[in-house]
């Protein structure tokens, strides 16, 4: 099983629902988004184009962030057998090497765990106790954060013996891939020739970004053009 995400920028219309879903699901704190929308404009009036590309962790097969972290001796970044690259907040020192080497600008050093409502009591979502959160949501100031492919959901699929339902059942599928109004995102097993992601890679020529770095991302893009 090779879990990948396919983002079809020919369909994406820039609504940012996927960005919002990531934030809600993963206990966003201001300043450290795990999923971002890049809007680009090109050409000159009246021959103008605008593109919408969402960027999250590529969960590279050869993750530069992990190499840097390992070399630095912290070993805070792991890549598990489902291909998910994770940061261990307890080991992370916030050195920023991972952010510096990532070709995709993914890791965010969360300088402080800022409240969602400054000056107000924490909202019930923020007030969820650490012991009631998945460990990937027990965030710490001055550590690196990034998209986990919603590891808490994939892990649940493993625990439930339902890995075949990843990308199909909402409870086993990353939050960002569930809300898209135009079906521009898909998540699933690239090794399954019947999967939506496998078909998209074939029929729509979905490709990895910045392949020259040799990182082998597990996020594929159907590209419409413009800057990425």
């Amino acid at each position, binding site marked *: 099983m090779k879990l990948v995400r396919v983002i079809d920028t020919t369909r994406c219309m820039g609504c940012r*629902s996927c*960005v919002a879903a990531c934030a809600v699901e993963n206990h966003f704190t201001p300043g450290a988004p795990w999923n971002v929308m890049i809007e680009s404009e090109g050409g000159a009036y*009246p021959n103008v184009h605008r593109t919408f590309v969402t960027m999250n962790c590529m969960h590279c097969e050869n993750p530069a962030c992990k190499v840097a972290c390992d070399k630095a001796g912290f070993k805070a970044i792991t890549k*598990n057998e489902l291909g998910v690259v994770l940061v261990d907040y307890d080991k992370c020192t916030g050195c920023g090497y991972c952010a510096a080497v990532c070709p995709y600008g993914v890791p965010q050093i969360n300088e402080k765990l800022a409240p969602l*409502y400054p000056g107000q009591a924490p*909202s019930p979502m923020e007030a969820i106790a650490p012991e009631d959160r998945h*460990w990937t949501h027990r965030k710490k100031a001055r550590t690196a954060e990034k998209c986990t492919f919603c590891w808490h959901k994939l892990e649940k699929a493993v625990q439930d013996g339902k890995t075949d339902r990843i990308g199909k059942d909402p409870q086993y599928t990353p939050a960002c891939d569930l809300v898209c109004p135009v*079906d521009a995102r898909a998540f699933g097993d690239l090794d399954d020739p019947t999967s939506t992601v496998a078909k998209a890679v074939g029929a729509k020529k979905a490709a990895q970004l910045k392949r020259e770095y040799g990182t082998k991302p597990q996020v594929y893009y159907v590209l419409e053009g413009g800057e990425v």
Partner: protein
Amino acid sequence: MLTTRRNFLQGISSLAALAATSGALPAFANVALTPGARKLAEEVVKSTCVHCVNFCGIEVQKVGGVIRSIQPDRARRDVYNHGICPKGVAGGFTAYNPYRVKVPMKRTNPLKGVDQDPGWVEITWEEAFQTISDKLAKIRKEKPAKLIWQHGHGKYLIGDSFPKAFAKAFGTPNVIHRTTTCESARHVADDITWGYHGYLPDIEHCDLFVVFGANYFEAEQYARWLDHAVTDAKERGMKVVVIEPRLSHVGAKADQWIPVRPGKDIVLVMAITRLLIESGHVDAPFLTTYTNAPQLVGADGKVLRDGEQPLVWDTVSNSAKPLAEGVVPALRGSYTVDSKPVRTAFDVYADSLKDMTPEAAAEIADVPADTIRALAAQIGRAARIGTTTKVGDYSHRYRPVAIHTWRGMTAKEFGVQTWRSALMLQMMLGIPDAVGGIKLSAAYRNPDYMGPSKCEYPPKRVDLAKSVYFPNGHHDVCQQVALTVLDPKAYGLQYEPEMQIFYATNRPVSTSDTATQFRSMEKTFNVTIEVHMSETAWMSDIVLPDLSYLESWHYAPTRSNPHAKNTAIRRPVVNAYNLQHDGFTILWELAKRLGMLDAYVDAINDAWKLKEHKFEKGRDYTARESVEVLWANATKGKPFDIALKEGFVATKLAPVDVYGKGVEEKFRGPGKPKMQFYADSMVHTLEKVKKTVEKEGIKNIDVAQYKIAYSPIPLKEHAFPTPHREAADLPFYLITFKRMYRNQSACSNTNPILNFAIGKDTNENHVLINATTGAKLGLKDQDLVVIETRIGKVSGKCKLTEGIRPDTVGVSYHYGHSIAGWPEYARKGIDVNRVIELHPDRVSGMNSYNDTKCKIYKAQA
């Protein structure tokens, strides 16, 4: 913690290994599983989002009693939405927002103004109800019409039938909805043309989708169906042409963007119509069978009649006759009837277009004549006039072209005429109710809409709807309320409004010339029922907290695609601040205290058209019980358990129901009314306006302008609204638009996900200026610029872009809020409505958001 987690990991890994031996997880025997979180109670509630007017099906996931996520209900994919927007995703923060109104409050500072501290004092519900009902009782005794009920989104929180029933029982005609801030001109053009309003493009079968300033990728009605339907259709090969001054997200995803000069789209449509007539792209059988295009028009502009029967020129007998079996009407031609010259209605329009060449339209609209020619040819080819196709076993007229708009064509002084020009073009091609065309909603449901207006005077309603001022204001005229309140005698109103109740609306901020709107609220006793503090609440005497859409019951309004219908409910998931009341229970309590509960119940049953399942007198209803009654009525008695479990029930429509029940049943052939290709009713309405003005000595109606507004056919003059004529010295056209991330009240401007999480550009709007124009003015990105119109100035940061016309300035609305109690981020940006001139469409009352002209310059440091 970590140690514990790792220990647990080992345990879980063992479990995984065990599972692997059983064959369930062969690939993941060594995956490092973690303990996750403590197991808390989980629940998924199916409901309906009411953040905007799309009413998407949602699943709300609650863990440990807290909303953790909101996702689209996948079961609704075949009916309406595939996904949900970021506002819907972030809806939990609407409920958990600390800036909500949490208790009833009364104002202690008698001075009203958005710059005044109201001196709020918390009061009990008892005091609130008593104060309000005492005031209402006095008004009801004296003159019930002095009460004005205004709602915006409140209509969708509990359904406008409840407020309408309350008003009926109370005795006031003044229930005012917000449609003139949205698209009422489109609705009224529909009403006049085919007897009701609303249509959906048949995207599934459409080959060419021509969009005039609609924004279905961001936020408007039916956006959450059109977004995926259009995207799918594009992949299948449908072409999308978007005509708008600013490159919206819809324009960005289109095959072609045509940047038309603001307000001039009508001449583009007229020129295209002319070209298509020239090239013979006219569906004559459709026009003669379903529309009044062959009817004969005299020199006075009226359709000739024999008694009540309109006359056509019968090519069999060569005489004027009512359309009947055996009569073959001429679509074109000039004839003589009773020694008087007449022309067919079609020729009246066709002849009027003789000067509307592509070059003439190009001069006005600043779209190259060749582009106009190419688009006309593209439309003509795609229309496939004369063809039929099969949908299932149903064979039907095939015209796979649709023209679409909302505010783009209609939020202007001549909005009705502009959309009528597009309706006429589509009738000419046979598009209404054709496969691949536009599916009309409930054709001819209200025949009165197609007749002359009553032109009532003196007006009964404070918004002057359907009076001589706005004769076809079928959908209320919300912004007019303020003007009438300020000077009722000027409009002949025979009472002084005393009290306004605002239910989930931020009306003054939502309309143009906002200073006037705020001033009117200083004159009346105001009650606001709201989820969050708003400028309207700030100007009120009493503010009542409302339950949010995630906390309350409602028999929900729904949307569906053209091939389905559905019935849905909304149900509470949490009650974040333990509030007691919502709009439904507040009205019920007030009706009780006013001693009019029985009358209210009767009015509710009338308003909802309840018969078998209805509200009974002599008992109270909780909000849930009210939804149970309405569900039973709508579903013909289906168990409420279905609503609780599934959230909705849906029906897929057969092709004959989609295409064969509208114009086919109502307008086809002899003995049936005809769609008004030529708006004969407007000629008669204008005559009544003239007579009423003369008889009553009305000074503030300019009949010459009504003559232009009430033309039976579109005119070049409709491309020149008041500011375009009078403010020629102001070089820029000012347009407004909606962004995905906001709506008019605090539910979005204090939502942290929408403001901090989804981009650095969402909690502030900008003045969009063409990059070349900006360079000429010496402007750089983020410079502070002033927009100056004839009624005021606002300033904000500019953003230079290639995606807007050089002569146009664009600003999104719903930013620049002014409540002092809100955090700084929630007040950022520009409140552009302050400087938008108000020149409402005289036909519909539609607010003129896209007609203002302005100048811009760098603000002084």
